[in-house]
């Protein structure tokens, strides 16, 4: 039998317990050391653009919140900000605060989720279970506010869909206290464990230069000493009014990223608390009737980094182009700089440390409505009324006239 000698290739994926989603990493290994790495994505590419031709500005938030389940507050927010920039809408005070609170709650549960998954990846199931247990109350709060544990879809052009009732404020504050106490315990347990130090420190280092060259964002960048944060750099929602700090570390290894995320959780708790205290009275949305032609960029700091949306409108009720750049899209490719020469065991951990989100990466949520007929607000209203009348007739509903009531 003829034998050919080839480099052993270890496939991570497409179905692999490391990630819940599909990706296909090919690690060329020499014993346990990884000498080269390549990735094939496309498993998660849903190609939203063609079917989105029918979607209107008001419907798109629900679509973009389904780009990624965990960033389902930040994607719609970035999109909405782009649209509001085109329309020149001034959002009511209370809406800005509500948006901030929802986004920070999302960050808290997302970071706790990552800590848990990180523990799970290295076989530390106790940390996994504990972190996910502490995360549950936050999901419950979000469910109480928006009606869903995930996929909130709570923003709309001109404001928010659901308000935070004033009666709920004390309850949220109470839960936050509990979460803070438990996160504090978890943080101490994680940061003081010598075995964890041995496992995480000096692993998967992404240098500052590489971080700039790969244009990474979020905790991945902040762990490498690039202290960027959209919330501070280009304040949106109510972040400009709140008092908080950007956490950054210089080491660039997995441990630094863990520290950044854990400490950020406390900043988020602080922010929610302050925002709740200063929650202004008033309406949560203004009516926006038409989106004028133009183009706008919106970005928001998702738990994983900067989410960027670009919208171009031609004055119709759909955008002609909608570009999404999720944070993982730039964070994931940085594995080329941080993984080569590492152990297989470390590579899987390094890949996980950027908190990759392949649904985000392969979104391509391009909304493209070039063939649409342009209606103005009045025409739409008229069409809507006609449709209602038609449906009523079809189902045989009794006809009401305004005067009868």
């Amino acid at each position: 039998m003829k034998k050919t000698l080839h480099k052993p290739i270890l496939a991570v994926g497409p179905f692999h317990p490391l990630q819940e989603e599909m990706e296909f990493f090919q690690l060329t290994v020499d014993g346990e050391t990884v000498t080269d790495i390549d990735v094939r994505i496309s498993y998660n590419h849903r190609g939203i653009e063609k079917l989105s031709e029918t979607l209107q500005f008001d419907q798109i938030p629900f679509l973009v919140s389904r780009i990624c389940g965990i960033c389902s507050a930040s994607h719609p927010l970035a999109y909405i900000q782009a649209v509001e920039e085109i329309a020149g809408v001034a959002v009511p005070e209370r809406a800005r605060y509500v948006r901030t609170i929802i986004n920070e709650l999302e960050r808290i549960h997302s970071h706790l989720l990552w800590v848990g998954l990180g523990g799970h990846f290295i076989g530390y199931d106790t940390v996994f279970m504990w972190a996910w247990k502490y995360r549950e109350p936050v999901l419950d709060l979000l469910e109480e506010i928006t009606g869903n544990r995930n996929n909130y879809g709570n923003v709309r052009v001109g404001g928010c869909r659901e308000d935070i009732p004033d009666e709920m404020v004390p309850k949220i504050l109470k839960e936050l206290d509990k979460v803070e106490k438990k996160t504090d315990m978890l943080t101490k347990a994680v940061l003081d464990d010598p075995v964890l130090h041995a496992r995480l420190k000096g692993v998967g280092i992404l240098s500052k230069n590489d971080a700039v060259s790969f244009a990474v964002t979020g905790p991945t960048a902040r762990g490498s000493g690039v202290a960027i944060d959209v919330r501070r750099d280009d304040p949106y929602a109510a972040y400009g009014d709140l008092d908080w700090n950007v956490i950054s570390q210089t080491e660039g290894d997995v441990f630094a990223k863990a520290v950044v995320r854990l400490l950020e959780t406390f900043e988020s708790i602080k922010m929610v608390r302050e925002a709740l205290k200063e929650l202004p009275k008033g309406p949560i949305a203004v009516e926006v009737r038409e989106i004028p032609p133009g183009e706008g960029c919106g970005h928001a700091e998702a738990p994983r980094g900067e989410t960027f949306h670009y919208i171009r409108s031609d004055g119709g009720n759909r955008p002609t182009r909608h570009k999404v750049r999720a944070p993982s899209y730039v964070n994931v490719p940085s594995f080329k700089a941080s993984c080569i020469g590492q152990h297989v065991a470390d590579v899987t951990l390094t890949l996980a440390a950027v908190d990759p989100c392949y649904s985000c990466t392969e979104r391509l949520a391009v909304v493209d409505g070039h063939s649409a007929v342009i209606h103005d607000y009045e025409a739409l209203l008229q069409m809507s009324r006609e449709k209602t009348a038609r449906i009523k007739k079809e189902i045989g509903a009794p006809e009401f006239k305004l005067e009868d009531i």
Partner: protein
Amino acid sequence: MEQEELKNRLSELKDELIDIEQTADNRIFLLCEASNAYGVARFLFEELSLRFVIVTGIDADDCFEMLYHFSNDQTGCMVTVKAFIRDRETPSIESVTPFVRGAEWIEREIHDVLGINFENHPDLRRLILFDDWPEGVYPLRKDVKK
């Protein structure tokens, strides 16, 4: 870099640009031809140290538009280079990947979905479409049938 300084430095590019538009306080659009895009983007990334955000490819019926979004993190200002590729038959533009490694994926993606050739790209393989996707069909082009 402060906003004023940024604007001054951007005016150095005047010869290579068609126009500079400012839609909002911190949204600047630099319009240029495809042949100048590489130089402008490189100037923004290396001289002004702006952060690369992403590239947007648009099929604008009469031409392809490549939008290179950069961000100035000190002021939160978005600087977008809008490059026009007039040749619809064999659209091509110079790749920025050699100096921004983070652009590798997005250029591969645009190559997939819009069929634009990126010159000097180190590795222009298929990224986002499935293995059996027919060659020469680009889902984001306007002329593609549903």
